[in-house]
């Protein structure tokens, strides 16, 4: 069931195209199998590349002997970190990040920092020969103690992953921070403060303190990383790849290989899921080096095991919350300590957690300390609303328990403390629209919230998720008008989630066309202006704005052609409801199609490009209600009912907004109930398959009902907000709250697996 609640529109049918559900332009190719994904490239003379990965979680590389592998018939080249120019040119400074660090993650240099860390690569005439050759590469390792998680990493006297990593301290969001000079596994410490928490806790009648823990988890995109590189000797390098950002890949490959960006073309393939995890590439520079060495195109495709062990998951976290409130529910102070595991190199999404955790609430006294901690796990990568879900799990679980302690309805406690436009977040920045009150008003009034639970061992959980979104990175778009009155729309935004159709609909709305009359295409780095990656919930908004701007140029140029035909000035032409009208003589009219047919006789084609760098899709809010039933004998959770609410501003294509809401809910349920990297004490992931890394299947979920809420975003011409990230935030705490209420025990560690539930029930019963 879908409900759309439009709070700003007034009348239905405000837009002709936006809000309707046309067939997506890329749909037929995708359902017929014609669409080409990362692994679908096949070229004459193509070779296959495979990567040798470290069996140890932490070791120094004494030497690598590739001679036996090179001698195997069919092997054409072997590459190691020595083949990446940036590694020869610059020492690693892990605190600074950048392409040097990526290069070392692509092929380890002096040390391996996690089980699965890439060490060498082979190109051979078949993938099987390449695999056999891997076994012939002799790596001499000096095995070092494994620093498997934040607890070990932050211990006094812990083994250090990086010899020259020092802790940075910062008291403001953004900026490098001040170097403390302390050698540590803590890469950075961010402290944000508002008011005086000590004073605030003194004013509280009730104080809750609790620690919340989450494990390393993976985005779980179904398509493994895959790319093909062809480096023409003395010529250009072309890479076909499955990525969220072709220009980012181009920049990194250029830096790692020390060649100009103008020598590189990145061609995007269709992407089979990314969720943030494909913002960073791993294979491209390696495939390029192997292509250069052999003179052949090189195809590299990861296995599922490699995806789990060798690509970026999201952080395991440990978050302490102390929160105090008066009897009437007014929150007087909140203090959070937030530890995020970065994996092998600095760069966890800790900042996302610190800035979002309690930002949707108006709390005068807040103190938050965030820590970015390296350990012997894969280097983390982005995952929808990076860092937010873990933070919300802690904060929204705490609010739920606090509501119980105060004897308040959990929704009422939240409503009592909502931040509104103009209130300051802990970042010090005043809020624009927050949406918390607006979304919660709808949640509270929804029939689901008051429906009887109807049985024992059942619980209802609610939570909200706030995505504090910062600046966008810029998008370009080009529109070509065809003689038949249709247009081609060209962008550089990889389509993860239906953005082609959502952007085409904005162009159609602007030009008075149907969605089908706009043909969107996503092209390579040579064929469109610079465009930041598909992430941060920004594409439908940012690339949409760029495309609308290009469409407005089209209107302007076509208006000038009409003016020439009518022998009036361009300002005498108006464009109303898809019709060009002469204001001097309103009988003079052209439909878009009629005028498009006259372009070649009035000065040639109309091709308009525009870009948008405004960014700032803005904060966004979503919420979930879950009803669950727990089998007290097995600990199994059955989800009885699930409703998700989201403030979208204006839905471009509601089906794909619902898709984001349902997909985010699903991923959040997996994160809450079953997903985790299960490590052996040696740091080996024991469950590196989709069989044992338990993502939910369709049989594990009820229908996820969606409620779309539309408060128009003033920063977008049609009021759009993002939808891609915030649906994953609230499901973690909402599920934890539901299960905790069903069994009468607070579940503060994810995943809330059947085993964990059994243990909690057992503990409760023995304590009685």
């Amino acid at each position, binding site marked *: 069931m879908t409900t759309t609640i439009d709070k700003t529109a007034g009348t239905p049918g405000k837009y002709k195209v936006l809000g309707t559900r046309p067939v997506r332009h890329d749909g037929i190719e995708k359902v017929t199998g014609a669409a080409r994904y990362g692994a679908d490239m096949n070229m004459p003379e193509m070779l296959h590349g495979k990567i040798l990965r470290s069996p140890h979680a932490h070791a120094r590389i004494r030497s690598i002997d590739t001679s036996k592998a090179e001698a195997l018939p069919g092997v054409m080249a072997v590459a190691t970190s020595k083949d990446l120019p940036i590694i020869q040119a610059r020492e690693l400074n892990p605190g600074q990040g950048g392409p040097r660090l990526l290069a070392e993650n692509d092929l380890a240099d002096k040390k391996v920092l996690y089980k699965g860390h890439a060490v060498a690569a082979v190109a051979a005439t078949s993938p*099987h020969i390449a*695999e*056999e050759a891997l076994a012939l590469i002799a790596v001499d390792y000096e095995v070092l103690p494994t620093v498997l998680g934040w607890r070990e990493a932050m211990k006094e006297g812990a083994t250090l992953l990086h010899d020259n990593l020092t802790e940075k301290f910062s008291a403001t969001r953004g900026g490098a921070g001040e170097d403390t000079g302390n050698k540590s596994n803590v890469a950075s410490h961010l402290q944000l403060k508002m008011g005086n928490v000590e004073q605030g806790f003194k004013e509280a009648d009730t104080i809750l303190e609790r620690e919340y823990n989450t494990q390393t988890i993976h985005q779980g995109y179904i398509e493994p990383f895959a790319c093909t590189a062809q480096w023409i000797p003395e010529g250009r390098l072309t890479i076909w790849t499955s990525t969220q950002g072709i220009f980012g890949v181009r920049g990194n490959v250029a830096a790692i290989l020390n060649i100009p960006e103008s020598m590189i073309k990145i061609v995007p393939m269709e992407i089979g899921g990314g969720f943030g995890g494909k913002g960073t590439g791993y294979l491209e520079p390696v495939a390029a080096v192997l292509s250069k060495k052999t003179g052949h195109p090189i195809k590299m495709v990861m296995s599922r095991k490699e995806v789990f062990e060798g690509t970026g998951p999201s952080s395991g976290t440990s978050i302490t919350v102390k929160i105090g409130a008066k009897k009437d529910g007014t929150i007087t102070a909140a203090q959070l300590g937030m530890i995020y595991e970065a994996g092998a190199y600095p760069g966890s999404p800790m900042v996302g957690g610190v800035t979002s955790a309690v930002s949707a609430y108006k709390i005068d006294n807040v103190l938050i300390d965030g820590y970015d901690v390296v350990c012997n796990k894969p280097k983390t990568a982005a995952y929808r609303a990076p860092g937010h879900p873990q933070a919300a799990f802690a904060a929204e679980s705490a609010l739920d328990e606090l509501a119980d302690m105060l004897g308040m309805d959990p929704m009422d406690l939240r409503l009592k403390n909502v931040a509104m436009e103009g209130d300051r977040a802990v970042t010090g920045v005043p809020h624009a629209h927050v949406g918390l009150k607006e979304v919660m008003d709808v949640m509270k009034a929804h029939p689901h919230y008051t429906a009887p639970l109807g049985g024992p061992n059942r619980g209802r959980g609610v939570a909200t998720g706030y995505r504090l979104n910062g600046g966008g990175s810029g998008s370009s778009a080009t529109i070509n008008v065809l003689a038949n009155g249709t247009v081609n729309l060209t962008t550089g935004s990889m389509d993860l989630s239906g953005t082609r159709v959502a952007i085409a609909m904005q162009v159609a709305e602007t030009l008075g066309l149907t969605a089908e009359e706009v043909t969107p295409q996503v092209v390579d780095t040579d064929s469109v202006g610079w465009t930041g990656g598909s992430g941060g919930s920004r594409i439908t908004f940012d690339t949409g704005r760029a495309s609308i701007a290009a469409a407005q140029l089209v209107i302007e140029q076509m208006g000038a052609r009409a003016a020439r035909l009518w022998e009036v000035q361009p300002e005498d032409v108006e464009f109303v409801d898809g019709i060009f009208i002469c204001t001097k003589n309103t009988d003079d009219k052209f439909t878009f199609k009629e005028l498009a047919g006259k372009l070649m006789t009035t000065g040639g084609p109309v091709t308009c490009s525009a870009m948008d760098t405004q960014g700032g899709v803005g904060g966004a809010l979503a919420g979930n209600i879950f009803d669950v039933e727990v089998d007290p*004998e*097995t600990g*199994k959770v059955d989800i009885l009912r699930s409703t998700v609410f989201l403030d979208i501003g204006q839905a471009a294509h509601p089906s794909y907004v619902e898709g984001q809401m349902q997909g985010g809910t699903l991923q959040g349920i997996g994160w809450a*109930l*079953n997903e985790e990297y*299960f490590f052996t004490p040696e740091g080996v992931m*024991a*469950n590196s398959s989709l*069989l*044992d890394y*338990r993502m*939910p*299947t369709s*049989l*594990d979920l009820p229908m996820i009902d969606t409620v779309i809420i539309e408060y128009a975003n003033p920063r977008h011409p049609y009021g759009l907000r993002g939808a891609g990230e915030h649906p994953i935030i609230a499901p973690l705490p909402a599920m934890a709250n539901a299960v905790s209420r069903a069994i009468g025990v607070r579940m503060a560690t994810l995943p809330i*697996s*059947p*085993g964990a539930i*059994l243990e909690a029930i057992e503990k409760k019963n023995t304590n009685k």
Partner: protein
Amino acid sequence: MQEFEYVAPANLEDAIRLMAEKGPRAKALAGGTDILIQLRGGRFQIDRLVDIKKIPELNELSFSEANGLTVGAAVECYRVYEDQTVQKLYPGLFDSASLIGGIQIQGRATVGGNLCNAAPSGDNIPSLIVQEAVAIVAGPNGRRNISVEDFCAGPGRNVLQEGELLVAIHIPTPKPNFGAHFLRFIPRNEMDIAIANSAVSVLLDDSKQHIVSARIAIGSVAPTPVFAREASALLTGKEANEASIEEAAEATKAAASPINDMRGTIDQRIHLVGVLTKRALRTAISRAREG
């Protein structure tokens, strides 16, 4: 994956010869849902894969009152659970065959392969044990019969000698007032490996109030699926009631010797075996009463 030879003999004699020639470097291929993944994962290095699906005798699925049910080694799970005789007379086998993997897996995977793969979690194996199934095996030295409860030797190991192949599984015709059930616990609702499983069968007397005999077998709680002899024997002659069920379920836990791993802990598995056995006994008894 290394190169190997694929052969698909049309009769059992050729298959046995092709297996025997290569000794431990030959493996049989039925549905392939285990062996192909194991080969890709580098668990075995082999020279020859012998596809048994072209051998008519191994595709036989038949039943007669006198001889019971014969399930050829190459018969897929879907054929077993779609068979009306199985649905009526072998309810435990129906339960397990219809929940292994997902629908696509069930279209390929065979009951015989599930047995030969000898996974501690193999879902059909406890069901076969409680219906007193016998494995019919042929090899260079002729045929022999092995009780299914004696077939598995360890995780991924069975008692077949070099060159031997499973021909069929034979299950006797159940007597009147018989009921069986299979349950497993998985965190998800499909496509998962049992943290624990339990199959039970009961034979009631004509009053349907007393248990004449019962068999309980459990999986994922020991190196092989286990026939819980003592717990089963406890039920002989007992009243078919909740007290008997509780007692047998508790005793079944003693037959479990599980490990801690990423799928579950020792305590969780022992606990679950008790819960599953209790629930399976309730259903098996009510099935026996419904007759």
